Structure formats: C-alpha cells, structure tokens
C-alpha cells in the first residue's frame, strides 16, 4: 500500500496531457464537472421524483433526481416507464455480440484491473494466425458482431496491430467494434477505414480525485485525454460510441450522472452519433483490492442507473455484459437492455482453445453459449438480432 502511495505522489498531474496526445476543442469536460459538482443528490425529495416521472421528456435535473437516494422507492415505476420506452424505440429487437481479447499486455497501473502492469499474469498477444482462428471459432457460433479488445500497450499492441485485427474481423463479421486504449482522431479515422464502426471506452470514474488514486501510472492516468475519447472517435468517422463508469470505483450518483450528461452533451454536439451505455460493476480480478465503495453498488443501484439512462436518453443503446449473471441479464432485457454478449471469455486464445492462452481480465458471471443466449431471448418473446449494421 505504501508503495502505491509513493507511486501516486510521484506520478504526473492526471489533468496534464502527455506528448503525442491530441487536444481537441471542447468544453464538455468543464460542463460535466461543473454540473456534477453542483448537484446535491441527498437534497431531492419524493416530490422531485414524482415530478420527474410525470414529465414526458426528462430534463437534466430530472435525470439527477432519478439517480438520487430519494428515487429508490420508485424503482418499479422507473422500470415500467423504461420498458415502454425501450419497446417504443427498439421494439423486440435485442442484439448479441461477443468480445474478442486480442492481447493482455498493459502499461497502465490501475489498482482494480487484472491486466495491470504489476500483475504477474500470463501475458499473450495473438498473432494474425491466432486471431483468425479465434474469429473463425466465434463466427462458427453464428455471431456477426464482434468487439475487439486489447490492453493498453502501444508497444505490444499498436495501432497497426489493431488495424490488422479489424481487417481480419471484417472478413467474418458484419459489425466490428473496438474496446482498445484511447487514440487520436486520425488513428480512429484509419481504423474506421479498416472496417471498425464503434468505439467503447469507459471513463471508470468521473471523480478526478478518485481517478488519480486508482490510475497510478501509464497513459490512462491522463483523465481529460480519456474523457475526450468519444469525441475523437466521432471526429474520426466512427458511427457510435459507448460510455460508462465502472460502478463501485467511486460515488454512484455522481458517476452515473456525469456519465449520462457526458453522453447527452456528446449527442448534442454530434447528432448523428449512435450513443450507448454500458453498466459494468466492479468484478473480482487478479490482484485487485476492491475499494469499500465496490460493495455499495448493489443490484438496486444497477437497475436505478440503467432505468435513469433510458428515461433520460431513450434513443441510447444499453449493453449488459457478462459481468452480470444470466438472471439479471434476462430481466434487464425486458426493461432496458438492447444488447448483450454471449459465449464470452475474457482470456486470450480461449475460443479456439489455442495451445498458449493468456489470463483473463476479470471473472465473468454468465457463461452461457451463443445458442443458449439466443434461445433464452427468443423464449422471452424477444427477437435476437445478430447483425444491426452495414459497414459502408
């Protein structure tokens, strides 16, 4: 613990950009922080929640109210409204995808993450042959949408490496998304040209002080560069971007509020963007010491967060990952979720059972195969969707 504190003290200012990081013109960070600092989540009353629920188009203030402790007794009403909006916007269609972990080398030191550079785990990076075997194995399950992931290492999994994975993925999949370390907009433009349309980057927490204590070293330490990732991706021509805090890292109300407002302002600035939210809760991982807040995000908070997202931004996609169990995911598909993963492994080379496998990033809680997820969506009266994008 002492060693970590020393590291934090020695580390660079987390608000200062490093050389090579693109700085874009945007005021959204200041707006989000200012708004989030101005809200007293404990000041909302039952009356505020009722007023928010009555309003057809929820305001930013309503969104804050719906995330407050005063809204917890109204979860059922929030869920009812959320379900109606989900069906109005998305009908019965629910998309299925899977993540493919390409490499787990990482140069960041994030105290909660299984991939962090101080963890002694099996590091691996798939070569092109290994990638293709993984993709073939995944494609054989019927999936047409893939999310490519790496750890944050420009030296071990650089932009060219990611580009080669995207080009290969285009051979097997209709929709290719990226969950890799933040890049500059010209790099996103290049990866978009190679075939990727969607970018996911989680801010982890919107609380700068907490962020600085959790991200002790590496490029990820730079808060504003990460914050402006979605904008750089959209400037690079990506179709859609995903947002999330990692629930459990810091204060729940403020983090979800800041994330929703971040997405809302990005949507206003880039009206064509397809916005989506994820709702990861902190999971046990190799070497992570869960902060005490991690236990504060119970299932009620998860439901409150996703319902508030839906009521505030009805058009947004909501993805529920396999960090959640089958029961939670099946229920959320009826209320808010528009996309879930299936046949998930967070290790490296595990889909095609390669001789050398890399260790997983975190433990998952829903081990169902693609067929099982597909059938459970159908059984619930919903329509599984394997492809919902045309790369043009």
């Amino acid at each position, binding site marked *: 613990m002492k060693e970590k504190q020393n590291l934090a003290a020695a580390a660079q200012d987390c608000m200062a950009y490093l050389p090579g990081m693109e700085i874009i013109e945007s005021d959204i960070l200041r707006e989000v922080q200012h708004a989030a600092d101005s809200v007293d989540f404990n000041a909302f009353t039952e009356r505020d929640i009722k007023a928010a629920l009555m309003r057809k188009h929820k305001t930013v203030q309503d969104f804050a109210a719906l995330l407050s402790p005063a809204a917890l007794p109204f979860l059922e009403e929030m869920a009812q409204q959320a379900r109606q909006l989900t*069906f*109005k916007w998305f*009908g*019965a269609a629910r998309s299925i995808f899977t993540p493919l972990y390409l490499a787990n080398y990482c140069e960041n030191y994030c105290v909660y993450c299984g991939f962090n550079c101080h963890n002694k785990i099996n590091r691996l990076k798939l070569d092109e042959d290994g990638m293709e075997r993984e993709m073939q194995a995944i494609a054989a399950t019927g999936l047409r949408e893939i999310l490519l992931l790496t750890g944050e290492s420009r030296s071990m999994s650089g932009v060219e490496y990611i580009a080669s994975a995207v080009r290969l993925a285009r051979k097997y999949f209709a929709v290719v998304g990226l969950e890799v370390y933040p890049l500059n907009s010209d790099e996103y433009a290049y990866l978009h040209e190679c075939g990727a349309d969607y970018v996911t980057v989680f801010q982890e927490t919107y609380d700068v002080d907490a962020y600085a204590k959790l991200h002790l070293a590496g490029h990820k330490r730079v808060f504003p560069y990460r914050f402006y990732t979605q904008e750089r991706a959209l400037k690079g021509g990506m179709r859609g971007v995903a947002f999330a805090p990692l629930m459990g890292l810091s204060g729940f109300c403020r983090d979800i509020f800041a994330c929703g407002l971040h997405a809302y302002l990005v949507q206003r600035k880039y009206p064509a963007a397809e916005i989506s939210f994820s709702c990861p809760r902190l999971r046990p991982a190799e070497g992570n010491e869960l902060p005490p807040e991690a236990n504060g995000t119970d299932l009620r908070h998860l439901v409150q967060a996703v319902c508030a997202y839906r009521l505030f931004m009805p058009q947004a996609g909501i993805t529920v990952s396999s960090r959640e169990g089958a029961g939670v995911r099946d229920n959320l598909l009826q209320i808010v979720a528009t996309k879930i993963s299936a046949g998930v492994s967070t290790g490296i080379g595990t889909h095609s059972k390669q001789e050398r496998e890399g260790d997983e990033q975190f433990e998952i809680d829903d081990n169902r195969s693609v067929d099982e997820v597909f059938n459970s969506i159908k059984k619930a009266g*919903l329509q599984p*969707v394997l492809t*919902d*994008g045309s790369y043009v």
Partner: protein
Amino acid sequence: MEDALILGGHKFTSRFILGSGKYSLELIKAAVENAGAEILTLALRRVNDGGMANILDYIPKGITLLPNTSGARTAQEAVRIARLAREVCGSDFVKIEVIRDSKYLLPDNYETIKATEILAAEGFVVMPYMYPDLNAARDLANAGAACVMPLGAPIGSNMGLVTKEFIQILIDEIDLPVIVDAGIGSPSQACEAMEMGAAAVMANTALATSGDIPAMAEAFKLAINAGRKAYLAGLGAVTGRASASSPLTGFIGE
C-alpha cells in the same frame, strides 16, 4: 374501376406498407397476411444473409421487398447501402432513409434528394422518406423518385398526423403518390391520412407496440381501406354551422 397504386410501373392493390424491424420474425407472416400487405420494408443492416435469425427466411412468397437504407448518414452511404440491398434482396425497390439525427430520427431532405438522383438513374424504384417540405418534394420528383414518403410525426412516436397541413400541400401539389411514412400510431390516424388523399400508409411501431400484432395489422388494413373508399367517394364539406333553411338569396328569381 380498378384502384391501383402504381410505383415505378409496378401495380399494387394494397395501400398498406408494413414495417418489420420491431417485432418477432415469426410474426411477420401473420402480420403480412392480416394486413393484406404486398410491400414489406426491412433494414439491410438487419439482413443476416445465410445466418441465424435472417429476416429473409421469414418473408412470405409474392411479397415485394422494400429494403431501406437505415444507418445511412449521407447520400453516398445511402447509395452504397441501396446497391448492397439490391444484391442481397434481389429487389429494385429502395426506401431512402438518410438520417443524421439519432434523437428524433428526422430525415435529411438535402442528402435524400442527392441519393434519389443517383439511384433513380441506376434504375431503382426510389421511395424517399422525407420531411414534408414542398420544395424538397418537387426536387425529389424531378430527381426521379417513384413517390414521396413524408413523415406524419417522428418515427416510432405514434403521435399521428402532426404535419397534417403540410402533407396536404404535398398531396395537392405533387403528381407522385404521397405515402405517409412515420408517426402513424393508430388505425384512425391511418384512415385520416387516406381520407386526405394519401396514396398509402406505412406503419411499424404502431403494430409492434400493440398487444396483438396480427390483429392490429388487420385493424390498420380495414382503416386504410375505409379511408381510401371515403376519399374516392368524396367527403362532404365540413362547415362550422348549420345551413340556413331560408337562404338569403332565395328572392332571386321570385
């Protein structure tokens, strides 16, 4: 007298165009049958050619497929999607949707006109989704569109004929079929559009969010037929007061 809807030289008797993107694939057949629909729209982005849950495997025989360019943000993207759609769906029909607004899903008329010009020249039967603007509708007609498809209200809103007066202007001034495309939330609204002289109505969310999709499809069919018959019969004039029984000009000719 035969009352046919003509689109790009193709003749249809049904005036109900059915959407497919928001409900279970297994219900498509029943919805089409109950709707008496001859044209079904589908998003190319959802076609999983040769794979699981492929919408093309659920289309009843004899139906004209109307692929849409959902996902296109520019004319160029719409053109590329339309060309892919022709290959995959084997249909010359295309519904142009160019949308660069994710919140209201309002169509971009300017880009839509550009895409229409290119695709009509390539022999597509172009059916453009548009905001009901007279100048844009004239440009679409000149660009070679087979019809115009103005929105009644934002897609999926079920708000009905919010743009009624502007759609009426298109019906009065444009020589192409005017098909009301989005926002129609109930059979009565569909009927009203047909009474106004719309050539057809398209609906999707109104059915998908109803309690019984095939039954609602039939309700729409009946309403659309009723509205069409009323339009052809010629509605009586609506006046704000009763007609005077002793007319003021009765003395003339006395």
